Each structure stands twice: as C-alpha cells, then as structure tokens.
C-alpha cells in the first residue's frame, strides 16, 4: 500500500460510496435500476436507460470478459515504470462495461491477449480507505 504510486481515485461521497465501501471488502458492488432492472456503469443518480431514480446496489459476480484492449508502450507518473501494460474495457456478466488495467496477460505480446477472454476482479489497497479494482484474465 505504501508502494502504491499510481493515481488514486478520490471517491465522490455523494453517489459512488457504496462501490468504494464494497471494494474495501473485496466485493464488486454495482448499481441497478429497480424500475427497469438494468445494471448501469458508472454510478448515477438516475438510470440512463429509463431515467428512474430508484437505484439499488447489489453484490455482483466479479466476472466479465474482455471487450477490447490496448497496450500502453508510453506512460507517465507511476505508470511509466510499468510499460508495456495492457488496458481493457471489460463486459460485465451483469451488463455494462468497466475500464481497467489488465492482469494475467503478456503485454509484451499484444496479439496473445484475446478479446472475449474471461476475467475476474481483484482489489489493490491504494491507501487506507481506497481499494482500486483491477481485472485478471483467468483462462
């Protein structure tokens, strides 16, 4: 944790707190509209699909699939030490999509990474209060 030298999110206390609270316990909490029953990501005060304000949080599976990816050969700050590293958009099992830096892949060999590969979430403690989600390829 003292070693975490990458940008740390500063959670918005008005809308996103349940996500960060879940992250501390290693759980992926997602928002779902109780009106149309669809999951959306990122968290909002109303549903982007039906514009209802009835949002509930639930514990998701923490599983998903790579939608697309890139390999960053150039970077800044704490990430500069990590090049090359892969970033990816993750299709969540429950619906919608998150962004991440991918783990469990060979970024030196971009073509070896497979769109559609199964990934699981894990959390890194970045500081006392903040656990940053990452996704790891598990197959």
């Amino acid at each position, binding site marked *: 944790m003292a070693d975490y030298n*990458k940008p740390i999110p*500063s959670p918005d206390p008005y809308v996103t707190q349940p996500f960060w609270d879940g992250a501390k316990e290693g759980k992926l909490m997602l928002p779902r509209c109780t009106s149309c029953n669809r999951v959306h990501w990122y968290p909002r005060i109303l549903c982007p699909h039906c514009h209802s304000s009835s949002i509930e949080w639930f514990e998701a599976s923490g599983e998903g699939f790579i939608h697309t990816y890139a390999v960053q050969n150039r970077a800044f700050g704490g990430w500069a030490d990590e090049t090359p590293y892969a970033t990816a*958009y993750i299709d969540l099992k429950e619906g919608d999509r998150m962004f991440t830096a991918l783990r469990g892949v060979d970024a030196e060999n971009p073509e070896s990474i497979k769109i559609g590969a199964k990934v699981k979430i894990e959390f890194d403690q970045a500081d006392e209060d903040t656990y940053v989600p990452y996704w790891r390829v598990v197959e």
Partner: protein
Amino acid sequence: MPSNPSMSAAIVAAAESDKIGYIEEGTTALNLHIEAIRNVCAEAGISPTEIEGVFATNHANMLAEYLGIHPKYIDTTSVGGCSFQMHVHHALAAINAGVIDIAVVSHGEAGFSARKNQGNGTLRGGGGDPWTPAAQFGGGPYGAWGPPSYYAHALTRHMHQWGSTKEDFANIAVVTREWAGLNPRAVMHSKETNKFGGPITVQDVLDSRMIVWPLNLLDICLVTDHGGAVLLASAEKARSFKTPPVWIAGAGENQSHADMLEMDDFTATSAHASSEAAYRMAGMGPGDMEMAMIYDSFTVTAGITAEMLGLTPRGEGPSLWADGNASPGGKFPVNTNGGGLSFSHSGMYGMMLLIEAYRQLSGTAEDGVHGIEGKQTSAQSAVVNGTGGLLSVTGTLVLTSDV
C-alpha cells in the same frame, strides 16, 4: 431570405435541482445539473430522451452521456453569467432553422460546495469542483494518459470485429502523406520541411515506434501550432466579397458518448447520425460527394469515419484509401492538405478541415497555400467531418462549389 425568429420558440418548463443554496451536506455541479434536468422533464411530462439539443456552460457532453441521449445540437458557450440568455438566443436560432424541436438549457454549479471540496477531485489532489463518475472509473487510475491510449482500444476492436489489419489502417497514413508531398506548408511535406518528411510506405508505419499497441507513431497525428479562420456570410451577401462563396448545403452534429466507457460499439461513431442530418438537409447522399475531408487524429479515426459517412461498407473503412483511390490523381480525393497525420494538427484539427475544403471547392487549393501543381482537385462537393473527444462527438458538413 431569413425571417424574424420572434415567437418561433418558447420556454415550456423551468425547474431547479432538488436543493439549492447553501447545501450543507455538499453536492457536485454534475449532480445539480442532472437533478434539474430530471425535474424539468418531469414537470413538462417528457422523457429526457426527447431532448434534441443540450446547452450548458459546463459538463454538456457529460450530461448527454449521463442521461443516455444523443443530442443533435450541442452548445457549450460559456462567457459568464449571461451565458444562459445567450443559450436561449442560440436555441431560438436552432429551432427556427428546424434543426431541433426541443432543447434543454441546463445549469449546475456548486459555488458553495466546491469550496468545501477544495483539494478533492476525481483523482487524489484533483482540486476544483470534482467528480465526474466517468473520470473516476475511466482512464486515470489505470494508466490511460491521453487520446492515443484510448483510441487504440477502438482499433483493436475493429480488427477483431471486422477482420481488418494494421496494414489496412497504415495505408491511410501512406496516402495522406502523398497529399502532404503536394503541400509545401505541410510539416511532413519533404525532408526539407522536417527530417521525417517525404513519402512513406506501409512498412514505415509498421516499423515506426509503437506508442500504444496497436497504434504506431505514424498512425498518430502531429502536435503543432496552428491558427486558422473562415468567414461565413448570408446567402444575400455571399457574393459581395473579394473571395468566392462555398455553400453550406448541409450540416449536422451528434454525440454518442463522452467517455469511452459509454461507447457501445467501439467501431462506430455519431458521424453516422451527424452525416445523415447533413445529407438530409442538403438533399444529397454519399454518392453525390466528390471528395472528403475526414478528421484523422489517428488512422483509426479516419477509417471508421469513412464507414459512418457512407463512403464504404461497414467494416471496410480503410478501403476508401486502397489502390490509390483517395490519393492525388485518384477518383475520390481525401484529406488533400496532408491531414492531421502529415500536414498540421494543433490538438483540435477541425479548422484545418474547413480551410482545405473551402480552398478545394473555391479553386484556390494551390495558390491559397503557395502549393505546387496537383493539389487542386476538380471536386465540386465535399463531405467534411470533425470528430472530438474520445470518438465522442461529431460535426458533419456538406459543402458545394458556387456554380
């Protein structure tokens, strides 16, 4: 002749955020916006999806994305506290022109809470009024550092989804460089203008430094200094200048998302919608176009946009540049100034598209920039498309020569 727009539009509802004033528990500008829009739609009895135009001094793109809407008109004019009166003025003009029927003018500003939140922000130490969720969960924490690091994800997906190749896209850079060879003001015109200037091959692109796989250096635009301006005039006055008019036959704009988190299909942009609007206004179609000026921040931007503009079938964007088709002397000239890839690109490239399209269609493409022979085409119509953000927002124009 223009007609007086008086009474051609009305304010039909007004509402505030849930709370206003000194909000002790704190809030963000974005939340204030969204609450107000939700409330104004509820009062009027419409869904936010019926909104066609978004006018806001801040967060405008974010508002549309957050609400999941795709506005046909976006105005972010921000000149201080009177901006909202000007937004109504501008919305009146847009409605009067038939471009939109329903617009929202929105305001969210955490004048009080932002002071409390000093030093907090989307990222630790972010400062100012904080917190758009897309930034909090988007690139920043994960080492995405700028447009190339995001756009690369679209190219990966295009290759996966449509079977395209790095070579297909590299060829866009090669052809664009050919045009730069005819433009002495192009940064990459020749070895004299830049040590990396002059003709390149597909292999050169593939061998150039890998910046973000799958984007090589030569897939990526320049970062230069640039100033440019165009004058527009009414039809009544258009022929009263020393210079000839190039007509705006059609125009359209649209947004599909703000952050790539909300980009549904990574191989499609709102240029599909903005160009449909422009073609419809012009009463023309892709087949009527004789050249194109296409935003080429990256080869993948240009390739995808060619598909969206209807210039190629879906998935085959790079084919527009194949076999010399879009090259000097080819059937369908594209990016005749040398593009953002090889001419000049200061960060926002849209002005360069306008200037070159004007010059081509006014017959000044050569002497206008002290060019050498071969740059002026015979095109009498052009489709011009700008792309902004992270393949987020597009504006499309159909321009025609004066005949």
